[in-house]
């Protein structure tokens, strides 16, 4: 993937670029909002990682200008502010996701991958069903089967599995699950998400040789990819 980092803190940017390169991504860097805009305008990046506070052109204005120019590259906003209203403002300006600083690199990576998938197929409607190995989820009938046997799920468990399957093969973090399945952005402090996932796992994986829901240490969870 080709990623542009717009961040004025050199050390943070270098750290981030190094990590992303190690993951096999091509990374460009810009230190001011204006430079970032000049580079991003071409539209040949898969993801933009934009800090909110930037010299010359602040992050939100940069995103707004890009959107006005018709550049639809997915944007992940980084911010040291990290409060409810900041998130809302960031998303309203045209950002696609928002990550408060300080963040775990694994969290950032997981979010970038999910954003990139969304960016690659923007116009495509969500499929009506997902299928991973012998696990099938029918979004219309709200029905889940594994190896032909129906699995009874609570509505929230259904949405949890749906999100995992939608991002099959990619890591999703606990905060991403809380955001997308429960629509909350606060930090629950206890392992609430883990308990929900382990319950789901008990229903989906128990009794099968192949465990589909995997725990990724220090990051979150991952549903085995379709081709694995």
């Amino acid at each position, binding site marked *: 993937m080709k990623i542009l980092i717009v961040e004025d803190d050199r050390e943070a940017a270098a750290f981030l670029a190094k990590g992303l390169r190690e993951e096999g991504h091509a990374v460009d860097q810009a230190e001011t909002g204006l430079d970032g805009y000049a580079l991003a305008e071409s539209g040949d990046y898969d993801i933009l990682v934009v800090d909110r506070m930037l010299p010359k052109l602040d992050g939100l204005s940069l995103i707004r200008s890009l959107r006005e120019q018709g550049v639809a590259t997915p944007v992940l906003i980084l911010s040291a502010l*990290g*409060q*409810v*209203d900041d998130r*809302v403002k960031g998303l309203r300006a045209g950002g696609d996701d928002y990550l*408060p600083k*300080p963040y*775990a690199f694994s969290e950032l990576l997981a979010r970038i991958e999910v954003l990139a998938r969304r960016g690659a197929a923007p116009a495509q409607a969500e499929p009506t069903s997902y299928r991973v190995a012998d696990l099938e989820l029918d979004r219309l009938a709200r029905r889940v089967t594994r190896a032909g046997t129906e699995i009874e799920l609570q509505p*929230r468990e259904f949405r949890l599995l749906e999100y995992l399957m939608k991002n099959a093969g990619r890591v999703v973090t606990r905060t991403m699950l809380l955001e997308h399945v*429960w629509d*909350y*952005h*606060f*930090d*629950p*402090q*206890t*392992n*609430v998400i883990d*308990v*929900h996932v382990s*319950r789901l796992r008990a229903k989906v994986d128990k009794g099968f040789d192949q465990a589909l829901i995997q725990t990724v240490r*220090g990051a979150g969870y991952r549903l085995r990819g379709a081709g694995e």
Partner: protein
Amino acid sequence: MSARAGIGAGAAGLRKLLSTTAFRLSLVYLGIFALSIVLALGYVAWSAERIMTRGMVETIEAEIAELEQVWRRGGLRRLAGAVERRAQAPGASVYLFTTPQGQRITGNVVSVSPGTLDVPGERAIEYARLTAEDESGVAVHRALVRVFVLPGGFRLLVGRDMGERDRLVEAIWGAFGWSLLVLVVLGFLGGWLVSKRVLGRIEAMTATTKTIMAGDLSGRLGVSGSGDELDRLAQSLNAMLERIGELMEGMRQVSDNIAHDLKSPLARLRARADEALRTADSPDALRAALERTIEESDDLIRVFNALLMIARLEAGNAEAPLAEVDAAEIARGVGELYEAVAEEAGVPLELRIADALPLVGSRELLGQALANLIDNALKYASEAAPGAPVTLTAERVGENVVVSVRDRGPGIPADDRERVLERFVRLETARTRPGFGLGLSLVAAVARLHGGTLRLEDAEPGLRAVLVLPRARTRQKDPSTRIAVASSERLKRG
């Protein structure tokens, strides 16, 4: 040199005294009083003079009427006799009867200013008089006289001596002058004394203020006990100082707590890293140590986030998107989020939630507040009897939405219930549990932002945390007025 300095200081002190408001006010009053006295006594003197003059004129006219009768009945000779008799009577008026050439025929006047007798009419003149007691004595007097020219050119002058009147008027003007002098002296003195006293108190207040400004917040302004405006000012300022002191103390405590509560985990963090560096001999051990380090850093970041959030909520400028939300939906959502954890911990989570509880608020903040309360309740539920539930209730009570979380744990002693809402306050019983003592502070701040309150009650057994949220509220910047507005609205409707 020192003498000059002393004089300089004295002059400066005097200038200060003279420039006080009290002194200027007394000068203004002094001026007004002096003017009033001048007007009042001036009027008295003028009236006295007028009344006495009129009395004199009346006496003169009466005498003239009598003398005219004498003249009509007995001619010039009888008139001269009458004048002669009258002139010698004690307390007599002023009489002069002359020939057409001005030669004195009879009367008690020795001489008059020349020309007086030539023109008939009334006027004030100076004259020389023969005193009754001593025929030879001659004194110059002033008199109010009337001059007549009789047939044949004889002149008659009848008048009253003005001495008495002049003395009285003089006495009045004298009193006038003296009282003015006394007034001015007393006024100055009084003004000076009052100003000195007021200035003294103000100086004392200024001195106290300076020591307070220098950092000693325990200082208080003196109150004289007279209950005057300076006392009231001092009292309000003292109350203000008291409040500032409390706030400062609170701030100091918070920062002390922050320093203390953040120092220990940082020290732990450092010790662990240090130890790993010294003793870890395998990449796995190092990895494990680093992972612990990250976990602990994350805890610290959480503390900072919570602190920042509380601060922003309390400043009242948290622009959390306030909208029409359904507290029942939020309670159900958060309840469901925690149900699994609760069950895992062997604590049933009971939900008693009304169908719909619309109110104006922030879904995100209310969700977080509820999560904190449930999290808290679950921590202590383990101490309750096995299987004792945690109950989440959300209902409408009058104009409020009341959301409460009840556990059946040890509860909080009544004395500590206010205190645990403060930042970083953790009861001894909570020390062994994870947490930083910010959860309830955050809930209280969220409640205030919504114009509501957080109350901790004894649920016998256990603790009930009650979040009272007004259903409708006006948005205001200042949190205290916001609460006031909310409660007055409640009163109005109730």
